[in-house]
């Protein structure tokens, strides 16, 4: 068995081990990766950045802990940007494992608001974020398509109470907010096919401005909606989150994870090249042997 045969029959456990070692090494090394923000991410940032104080941004967070690593950084960056700019945030969690996680994220971001920060050269003082005034978390209801259609009629139709059991009419922020007509935009952060529902049943039927944040694997399938103008921006996976963090001047977990992702990509590419070299060399040898045999 020559080296190429060995390459072709390489045990996959070595691949797993090598990838794990490289990921840990990249994490420990702490390399800085230059991040170039793409237009589809920049458009979301610019839109929120230019909204007047008191506007309402609707952020449906339809993901569960499986997609947390990719999508949580988007949530943190967008919600903090909104709150720093005194923009109100309306939130739903249409994935059944999501509400607890979203509640925790909101409390984390509210804690970080208690510290004064400077983003993109603008100083923001510390402030207390108040439930019902700065944000409303409506929670979870099953059947996302129906909920999205119901929200278009009136937010109170699928959600008469918020996640904490308070009637929506008692929340100061919700007094003038009835349906999608009263929001500046919706930014759906989703690890499920709820994004399809937001595009078809939400934007398609009610025509509000919609942007999406999705996992890396499903990013490519939403580009047609960007081209058609049905969505005005896409954040794709951890890279999209890192780009948003860069634009918001608020580096977080996505920025920290970029070296690991890059190292994993390099390893995968190296393995693809190795696999192809092995494949072609083995095929060449087989052809030679066949020629000799004749």
């Amino acid at each position, binding site marked *: 068995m020559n080296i190429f045969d060995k390459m072709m029959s*390489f045990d*996959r456990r070595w*691949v*797993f081990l090598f*990838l794990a070692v490289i990921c840990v090494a990249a994490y420990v090394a702490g*390399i*800085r*990766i*230059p991040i*170039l923000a*793409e237009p589809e991410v920049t458009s979301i940032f610019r839109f929120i950045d230019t909204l007047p104080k008191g506007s309402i941004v609707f952020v449906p967070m339809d993901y*569960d*802990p*499986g*997609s*947390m*690593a990719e999508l949580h950084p988007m949530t943190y960056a967008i919600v903090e940007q909104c709150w720093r700019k005194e923009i109100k945030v309306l939130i739903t969690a249409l994935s059944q*494992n999501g509400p*607890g*996680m979203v*509640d*925790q994220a909101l409390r984390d971001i509210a804690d970080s608001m208690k510290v004064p920060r400077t983003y993109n050269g603008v100083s923001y003082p510390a402030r207390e974020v108040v439930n019902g005034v700065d944000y409303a978390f409506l*929670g979870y*209801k*099953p*059947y996302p398509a*129906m*909920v999205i259609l*119901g929200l278009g*009629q*009136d937010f109170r*139709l*699928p959600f008469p109470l918020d*996640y*904490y*059991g308070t009637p929506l009419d008692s929340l100061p922020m919700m007094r003038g907010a009835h349906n999608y007509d009263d929001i500046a935009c919706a930014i759906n952060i989703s690890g499920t096919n709820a994004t399809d529902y937001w595009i078809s049943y939400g934007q398609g*039927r009610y025509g509000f401005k919609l942007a999406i944040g999705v996992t890396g694997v499903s990013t*490519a*399938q*939403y*580009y*047609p*909606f*960007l*081209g*058609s103008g049905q969505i005005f921006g896409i954040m794709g996976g951890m*890279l999209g989150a890192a780009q948003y963090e860069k634009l918001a001047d608020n580096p977080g977990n996505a920025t920290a994870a*970029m070296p690991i992702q890059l190292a*994993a*990509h*390099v*390893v*995968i*590419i190296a*393995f*693809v090249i*190795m*696999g*192809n070299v092995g494949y*072609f060399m083995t095929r060449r040898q087989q052809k030679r042997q066949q020629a000799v045999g004749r």
Partner: protein
Amino acid sequence: MKQQIPRLIVLCFGLFLVFQFFVPHESSEWIYEFLLDWILIIGVFALAVGIWSLFHVHVEKIKTKKVGWRYSYVTLAALFTMVTFGFTSMNGESFGLFIPFVATVVLTVLMIVQAMASKGNAVPYAALAGVFALAAVLIAVFDNAWSFHFQTAEPLRSVMFRRAFDFVLIPIHATMFSLLAFFIASAAYRSFRARSVMATLLLLAALIVMFRFNPYFGPTVGQYLARTANWLMNVPNMAAQRAIVMGVGLGMVATALKVILGIERGYMGKG
């Protein structure tokens, strides 16, 4: 009649909702909201049916001792533990007899399951279920450290629910998803071969998209790679995806029409 009445209902509601979409009149909107309410209500019942189905499937699995039947106990115990956490909340710092209460609830359920799954000797398990249920009721009545909350979301913020979520569910989900990276690496090594022109193009496109933010290529090559990757996503990818989306959309319209017209009857349990 059994066939015709459901088909008539589907035809009427299907056609009504198609026309309703184009009629922005107040009464049309009212009927639409009314129907949405109904869908949500029916959905809640479907959820209850789903939980019963899960329970029934696992009892059957235990009864017939199918492969992995022991895991069914774990599933049912986890289900009822989370349900208990979801309806209870601590009144203060002390847990009181909350943990024994959860244990007795879970044991009651498991004994009921065992009684249902046992062939001919259900009585001892039923008796044990009664004992555990009585213990659970006594703890619930006399322990003031915690209480039931059926109307508010307070239990969702309670310590046990949060711990189960933060320290069990989140790591399990995150672990399962992160394993994907390893399988992708292995699959890429074994099957991503430049066997044909199309496969080579796919391979090159994948390499460019993955390499686009590699800092070691320098600013010139890096910018070029980023622009090429962007073009790949925005032009060929978008064209192909658009064709798929349109095809799927037309397929959905065709299927919806078949359902409305009674040609497709899969929803009644017949094709």
